[in-house]
């Protein structure tokens, strides 16, 4: 890997960041340790020297100068002592002590003096520092008491060496730790990267493996997988629509083309040409209607509409649709009754819900024989849940958000009904039952209702009305779950799937 690319990797940057932080903290800790030890030791030196001076002062006061000479001589004869003594006459020539000559440095204002010792005591040829305090006694005698700092400096030297070794170790350990930690993280990200790359090459069924730890990366993997599921479902839906269009628009298009072709083949008069053109326009209109229905279904299934959801009052919506169809039903000798209980409100798209109800009523009118009856029922959530019927504020503007119960929209007719074995199939596109082939329609009505139901997180139930068909849209009490609409549409041969299982959350 070229250096530039290596530098760009998050692994390296994270490792360096880790190392930097680690190194800084260790350096700060060591510095504090060094400083406090240093302070303690120099304080110790001074205390020792001061104690020594107190002892000598006592001797001097009791026994005078000779006593002091004695004590200094005896004390300085102790081997390996790090205390320095020197007693001189007025001429600074040594009388007693373990220092060979009076230091040349001038004392600092506090009476303390720093100097180098050059004598080869203990076979140490290196000059080393000493720190001492000086007094002038009566008769211009001079006394120096101090401490050889050699041991202290050796200790400092050791400490600095130890600190240097620690820092080197820190760099090694920190670097290693940084690389390990960031590699561990980046490896998991790398797995996600590799998976997405494979998906990009067209392997849409690939999924990011999950570790099951539930941490952020696992959540990311989970979210990616959910997104992929949705994309796959969308693509499946698209493929299904395309196939449906290809399959079911081709037939009428071929019919239309043949009609025109045959008309051209034979000699005709103007009226029959006009007739053919009229028929062709009629056929084209039916094609366009089918096309529009397919687009409505696709729109409901696309899931793009969730941001356009608004509260829809089901009772008013049903009343409008029933009113629209009442004259038609009457003309066919059917009666429609609308019963409403509660004030059900759902979050959704009014136009699509109206269209769905329109399709249901259209079907009911189409298939119910004269003299029959159609019931449209709108049931409010509170009553459906068997609660104490507190409507009003609780069934207010939150649509499906109120707790308990579900809003229902029911269309029941006294027609022939749908045999149980067929109930799943009728929801699929273009499926028409045998006896319905003679009546107009494109076989998309219930598919649209199904798509609209799923968009709104509602279940579509087909039941027996004894006699007749009872279709219920049961809205989810929690409102539509957000990606509801992008469920894969019922596969063409998924006859085994129960209609009740079309819960969008599932």
């Amino acid at each position: 890997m070229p250096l530039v690319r290596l530098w760009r990797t998050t692994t390296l940057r994270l490792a360096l960041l880790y190392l930097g932080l680690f190194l800084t903290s260790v350096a700060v800790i060591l510095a504090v340790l060094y400083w406090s030890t240093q302070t303690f030791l120099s304080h110790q030196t001074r205390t020792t020297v001061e104690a020594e001076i107190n002892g000598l002062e006592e001797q001097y006061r009791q026994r005078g100068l000779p006593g002091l000479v004695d004590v200094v001589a005896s004390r300085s004869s102790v081997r390996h002592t790090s205390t320095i003594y020197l007693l001189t006459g007025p001429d600074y020539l040594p009388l007693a002590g373990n220092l060979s000559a009076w230091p040349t440095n001038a004392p600092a204002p506090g009476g303390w003096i720093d100097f180098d010792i050059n004598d080869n005591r203990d076979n140490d040829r290196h000059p080393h520092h000493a720190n001492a305090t000086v007094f002038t006694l009566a008769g211009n005698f001079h006394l120096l008491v101090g401490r050889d700092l050699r041991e202290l400096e050796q200790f400092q030297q050791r400490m600095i060496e130890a600190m240097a070794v620690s820092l080197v170790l820190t760099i090694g350990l920190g670097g290693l730790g940084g690389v390990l930690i960031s590699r561990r993280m980046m490896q998991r990200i790398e797995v996600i990267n590799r998976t997405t790359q494979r998906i990009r090459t067209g392997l849409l069924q690939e999924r990011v493996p999950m570790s099951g730890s539930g941490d952020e990366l696992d959540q990311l993997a989970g979210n990616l997988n959910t997104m992929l599921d949705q994309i796959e479902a969308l693509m499946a839906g698209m493929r299904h629509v395309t196939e449906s269009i290809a399959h079911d628009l081709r037939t009428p298009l071929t019919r239309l083309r043949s009609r025109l072709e045959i008309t051209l083949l034979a000699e005709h008069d103007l009226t029959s040409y006009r007739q053919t053109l009229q028929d062709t326009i009629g056929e084209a209109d039916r094609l366009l209607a089918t096309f529009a229905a397919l687009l409505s279904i696709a729109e409901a299934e696309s899931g793009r509409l969730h941001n356009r959801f608004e509260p829809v009052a089901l009772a008013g919506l049903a009343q409008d649709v029933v009113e629209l169809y009442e004259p038609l039903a009457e003309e066919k000798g059917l009666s429609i009754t609308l019963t409403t209980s509660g004030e059900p409100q759902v979050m959704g798209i009014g136009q699509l819900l109206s269209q769905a109800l329109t399709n249901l009523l259209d079907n009911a009118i189409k298939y119910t024989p004269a003299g029959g009856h159609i019931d449209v029922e709108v049931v409010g959530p509170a009553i459906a849940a068997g609660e104490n019927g507190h409507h009003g504020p609780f069934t207010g503007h939150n649509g499906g958000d109120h707790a308990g119960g579900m809003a229902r929209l029911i269309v029941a007719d006294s027609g022939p009904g749908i045999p149980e074995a067929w109930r799943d199939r009728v929801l699929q596109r273009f499926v028409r039952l045998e006896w319905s082939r003679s009546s107009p329609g494109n076989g998309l009505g219930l598919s649209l209702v199904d798509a609209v139901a799923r968009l709104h997180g509602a279940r579509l139930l087909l039941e027996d009305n004894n006699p007749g068909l009872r279709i219920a849209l049961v809205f989810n009490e929690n409102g539509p779950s957000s990606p509801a609409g992008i469920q894969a549409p019922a596969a063409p041969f998924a006859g085994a799937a129960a209609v009740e299982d079309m819960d969008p959350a599932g």
Partner: protein
Amino acid sequence: MKILVIEDDNQAAAYMVKGLKESGHVVDHAPDGKDGLFLAGSEHYDVLIVDRMLPGRDGLSLVELLRAAGNHTPVLFLSALGSVDDRVRGLRAGGDDYLTKPYAFAELLARVEVLGRRQTSSGPVTRLDVGDLEMDLLSRSVRRAGKPIDLLPREFRLLEYLMRHAGNVVTRTMLLESVWDYHFDPQTNVIDVHVARLRQKIDRDFPTPLIHTVRGAGYCLRA
């Protein structure tokens, strides 16, 4: 009426121009947004028919520009995009009506004529008269030849729409959109039954019918 068609599909435009001319209108055609904007800005038209997707400048921004420049010529959008969203966006940009492709020419013609004859009336209308049929919008009452006629609320709105566009062909889709506010076509022609009922009340007891069926298009109310 003088109509400008801004449409990049030359064949579709040619059919449209031919149809509109045969219906007695004067038609200009611009093949892209740039020419369209120039023509619409420099000449007076009664209606603009604007395709939403155009080379040069898209239809939405073209209309937005015209409106910003104070041009209030009625605009009918044509679009292959027919979803709820697209429709709302078109109307918000300043369009007056929206027709999704593919459309029936009769539908286009009816809408264009309604748009072109839309009166910029001064003050609210309180009375509508067509022949001996009169509608009082304040007391919500209808009389024909002095005899009061009882209408249901929806029938009243249906008749009101027909009377407001008296002399124009009104399609079933237009009625569904304006009277019922439904932007989809039901599988069965429910509108026909409603119009038949209205006819019973308006025309049955009188010698001259006012509501006429226009074959392949819709209805027309005229004296």
